[in-house]
């Protein structure tokens, strides 16, 4: 194909930017066709070497709960695949089977079971296998927990009916921290499995009520049930760009600076300048009315993604991103394998596909 030349500025802008108008978003759909700009001498195809040279990743925040990073020169389908995999295809471990021996609290068994399922458990699922209904329960696919609590009158409480139940009763609230890991024979962990938070209220009991539950936690993915999703949120946004198209000075500059709730603008030598475009929320206030709308243009950069991944705490957030990318690699491998068998099958003659027909 033709060697790369620059596209004319107005077309380059359509290709590489998403325009944010007051009432409308311009060019929301990316143009990815390899030959789309062929007649202009512009090669829009994917070249793996270029991809590797151009790719930029910057981590702007990283702790076990949250990672914020920029991925530049990657297109939406790839970024979206990463996001979607984070949400529903990175495995984790959650309570799946609940055996209720006794529950005479006001919370129904099924409601309680549902709440137990949603408790994030700090267990690394990577050494586990997936348990499916009907499978044998082994140390490799299950972690057992038990919950045994009972509420009593607090004998030493003041004789005051107005006192809150926490004072009147012992064990009034049932917390996730009351879930106890029950080791199966031959099962051992460096860090004993436990809920990520031990202060989640599961149920409230009155005096004389008790809950006795045994449960099996298993490994699966968020596609099966949202309780296995390892992230609180995994999202991205495109990098905002705020451009001053016509010089704004004096009163106008001051007005613009004060207008912006995200404090994007600064004033330098009596001119309004864009100082913190990353903070722009695209609230469109600056393009809502004249005279400001004549001076400002809002766009987003189509190939600059700002990812924000928050873990539920089951695993460090950065490790989740790594696992998501590994899942994508596995998916490709699986399809590659399937493709090879499919090609063999059809060339083996047991199908009606005629491979001699081409050309």
């Amino acid at each position, binding site marked *: 194909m033709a060697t790369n030349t620059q596209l004319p500025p107005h077309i380059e802008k359509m290709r590489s930017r998403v325009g944010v108008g007051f009432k409308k978003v311009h060019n929301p759909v990316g143009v990815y066709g390899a030959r789309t700009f062929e007649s202009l001498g512009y090669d829009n195809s994917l070249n793996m070497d270029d991809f590797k040279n151009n790719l930029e990743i910057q981590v702007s925040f990283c702790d076990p709960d949250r990672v914020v990073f920029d991925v530049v020169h990657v297109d939406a389908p*790839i970024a979206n695949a990463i996001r979607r995999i984070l949400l529903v295809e990175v495995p984790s471990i959650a309570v799946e089977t609940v055996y209720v021996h006794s529950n005479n609290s006001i919370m129904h068994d099924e409601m309680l079971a549902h709440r137990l399922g949603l408790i994030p458990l700090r267990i690394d699922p990577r050494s586990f296998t997936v348990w499916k209904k009907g499978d044998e329960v082994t140390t490799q696919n299950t972690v057992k927990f038990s919950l045994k609590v009972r509420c009593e009158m607090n004998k030493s409480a003041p004789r005051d009916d107005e006192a809150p139940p926490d004072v009147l009763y012992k064990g009034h609230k049932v917390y996730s921290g009351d879930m106890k890991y029950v080791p199966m024979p031959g099962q051992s962990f460096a860090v004993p499995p436990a809920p990520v938070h031990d202060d989640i209220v599961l149920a409230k009991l009155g005096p004389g009520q008790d809950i006795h539950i045994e449960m099996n936690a298993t490994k699966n993915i968020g596609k099966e049930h949202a309780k296995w999703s390892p992230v609180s949120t995994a999202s991205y946004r495109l990098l905002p760009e705020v451009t001053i198209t016509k010089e704004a000075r004096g009163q106008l500059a001051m007005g613009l600076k004060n207008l912006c709730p995200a404090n994007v603008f600064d004033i330098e030598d009596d001119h309004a300048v864009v100082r913190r475009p990353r903070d722009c929320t695209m609230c469109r206030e600056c393009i809502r009315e004249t005279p400001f709308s004549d001076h400002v243009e809002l766009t987003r950069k189509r190939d600059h993604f700002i990812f924000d991944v928050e873990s539920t705490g089951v695993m460090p957030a950065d490790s989740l991103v790594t696992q998501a990318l590994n899942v994508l690699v596995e998916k490709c491998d699986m399809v590659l394998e399937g493709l090879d068998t499919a090609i063999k099958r059809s060339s083996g003659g047991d199908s009606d596909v005629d491979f001699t027909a081409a050309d």
Partner: protein
Amino acid sequence: MNQDHPSNPKVEIIGADQRSQTFVLRNEDHTLGNALRYVLIKNPDVKFCGYSIPHPSENIMNVRVETYGKPAAELFKKALLDLKDMAQFINTRFGLEVESYKAMNNETEA
């Protein structure tokens, strides 16, 4: 989930003409579908590529590939390899960046 039956192949190829074929993938969704379509459409040898999930309760996805002459299966395979390569490369780079971020921040704390 009876559609998961092991006798169902992961990939089936439909179409007599090698240059225009439909790849029927099982247990895949928009995650892989859109990414694959993107990589294929970025290949100048591909004349047309689109994907569809005909019914939400069937776990089937069709990827249609029509080429300017090369066998569609070959380009489909190349797309998968490219996508895999991209994922691996992003992964390595991401790992390095996280490491250097952690190293930097531990330094400033110390």
